[in-house]
């Protein structure tokens, strides 16, 4: 008898990008579905700009963190931050890259460009999405987390959660719009 894990998801990004909120959106959707979920957050420091990640585990799980090589999906709200969590990937892991490379606030350190990260990830299943295009269309820079959730939803990362459970947890029209926009981009991607 093994533990029934339904989803092991890691979201990496930069403090201030709304990762904790993204984690709350997933937990609320799971709450609606009556699913057990554990989201481990690193929000020790209130400052912006540092590397932040969350471990999301859905299913009959106990441990709060995902084992190495154990992630079904890794989302990087910034490409270098997806790379940081690569130890959790295996050859089946879906890696979603936001086409964004941000330099750290340390002098003289150059981040890897999206293409460079992609090259390093050549042995993995990688899908790219440009969240900034979505947020610019909506005119609200805060919606990138609902956009990437919609995109992942469109790629069937969350088969255990219904669309309505996600939508009901979204605060405000812009988040709903960006969720659907992300989902449509994913559907287009699958079709092509």
């Amino acid at each position, binding site marked *: 008898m093994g533990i029934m894990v339904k989803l092991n998801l890691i979201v990496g990004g930069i403090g201030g990008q709304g990762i904790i909120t993204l984690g709350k959106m997933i937990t609320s959707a799971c709450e609606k579905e009556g699913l057990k979920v554990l989201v481990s957050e690193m929000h020790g420091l209130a400052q912006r700009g540092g590397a932040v990640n969350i471990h999301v585990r859905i299913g009959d799980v106990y*441990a709060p963190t995902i084992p190495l090589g154990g992630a079904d999906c890794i989302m990087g709200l910034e490409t270098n931050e997806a790379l940081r969590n690569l*130890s959790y990937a295996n050859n089946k892991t879906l890696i979603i890259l936001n086409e964004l490379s941000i330099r750290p606030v*340390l002098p003289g350190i150059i981040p890897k460009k999206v293409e460079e990260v992609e090259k390093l990830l050549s042995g993995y299943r990688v899908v790219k999405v440009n969240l900034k295009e979505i947020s610019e269309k909506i005119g609200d820079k805060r919606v990138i987390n609902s956009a990437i959730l919609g995109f992942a939803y469109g790629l069937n990362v969350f088969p255990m959660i219904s669309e309505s459970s996600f939508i009901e947890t979204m605060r405000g029209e812009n988040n709903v719009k960006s969720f659907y926009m992300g989902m449509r981009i994913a559907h287009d991607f699958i079709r092509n």
Partner: protein
Amino acid sequence: MIVMRKRILLGNEAIAFGALASGVGIAAGYPGTPSSEIIETIMKYGDNVYAEWSTNEKVALETAYGAAIMGGKALATMKHVGMNVAADALMSSSYTGVDGSLVVVSADDPSMWSSQSEQDNRYYGLFALIPVIEPYDPQSAHELIVKAFDLSFSVKHPVIFRTTTRISHVRAPVELLDSSPPVKGKFHKDPGRFSLVPEVARKDRKLQLQRWEKIKMEVEKLNEIEGDGNKLIIASGIAYAFVKEAVENLGVRAKILKLSTPVPIPKEKTLKAMEDVEEILIVEELDPIVEMQVKELIVDNDVNLKVRGKSLIGREGELTLDRVTSAIGEFFNVKIEKLREVTVDVLPRPPALCPGCPHRSSFIDLKKALALAGVKDVYFSGDIGCYSIGVLPPFNEQDSLIEMGGSLGVANGVYRSTGVIPVAIIGDSTFFHAGLPGLANAVFNKTPMLILVLDNRVTAMTGQQRSPSKDISIAKVANGLGIEYVSEFDPFDYTSIKEIKNAMDWVRKNGKPAVVIAKRACALEVLDSVNGDLPIAEVDENKCTGCTICYDHFTCPAIVPLPNKKAKIDLDQCIGCGACVPICPFKAITIKGEQPKGWESWLS
């Protein structure tokens, strides 16, 4: 108590709601990661519960202790290192006991996500003879804090409730218990028990040991044996979550002793769990607290069993499923394929001072002022707060940062052993937390040092909790303590360089301490108070020479370099604070847009 429906809660919220279900009447704490949300939640949801942010953990514990002396149900919360500050009161509380309940939450931080050490506070239980209860997830935290209050109330003894980052900062579904009416105290006195002069202390010591015997019995029922088999795994606190999952994944048959009380371990239940067992594995995070006690128990009872623990699990950092699976695999002789960490070259991305952070300007001003004063050798004696980031380049202005309030005492020592005049850098909340005795010492012992207080009006690092600086003027405090040279400045104002230089000149001339206070609110606090569109910085490309000062030496995250080295404003990050305007030697940066309502809170 009626069980309400499940809600998704942060572990710390689960602890707070558990305290409310226990009838907590008085709660006090000092913010510190990962403990801060407990008091915040009680403040938000505790009807008729007195909750406060105290000036430090010692005062918080004393507040709860005093309330429990009066018979109230009291809670004190702190991060693990905060307990060192509160330890004096903690030790005495074990001697006197209490009349109500006294539960002390210690939020430990294995792996040091935001702490200077990963000290295992279960040692305090052994040290002070105070029982330690530790949960393994938010649900058990919610239920066990109720047991902690019950145990404290029935034995009239303090109880340590130990949580960790991976419980406090995990969101999970929790079945909530209903709140109980808050229990406050009744005014009464008992100096024969609570005034610890030697005669009373000696009497209390005997009573403390008697209570400890009772506690040993009481904790039996808080622990459980699960499953059977000839191999026993003893798992304490969060280790249980990892053990449970690893055992099921490996499909091995194990008897598990699930411990909620690592101090003291339940002797009877542990001996019972050892029956028909050939080997024991103890899984616990950090130090061998349970292991030491189990080994003692085995020796005392002539049990002949092989015990393994730290030799397989290791002593450092948070447990992971990989570590626990590998240890259990070895214990059961199951071969485990070891996954190695993938080594990719990833850039460092430490936390940074936010756009608009006044500390950035203070660090720049301080450096310029010391250069202007002709100071060559200087020691930056740092402290704990957002400004600890000053340890990083380009600032490099935290030569040591040891513990809360340590900047002043360490600076004194540096001066006494080298004769080099140091600069002590301390935040407003830290100043009131443990900086005051160090400042008094500098006056009392005439230490030539410059003290730079970074007053951003809140306890910023832990989420902008209220700081005493809102109500008490640091300048007046410094004056009152006998500091002869005190000045305040706005770090966004260019004249601040001169203010700091003058103070340093004065220290060198007079051989006494001087205090300069950089007063400007935390940018996140301001953003919370403003209403309307923010102004924004603009770079005049014709004036910008690509000198790199604004992004490589000032390092505001909202200023980024263009391929031609000229500066560009990141519109997503810029808040229009204007701190960069005086930094540009070519006057290429200006601020556009109206100041929104509430903008004056920068200088509140």
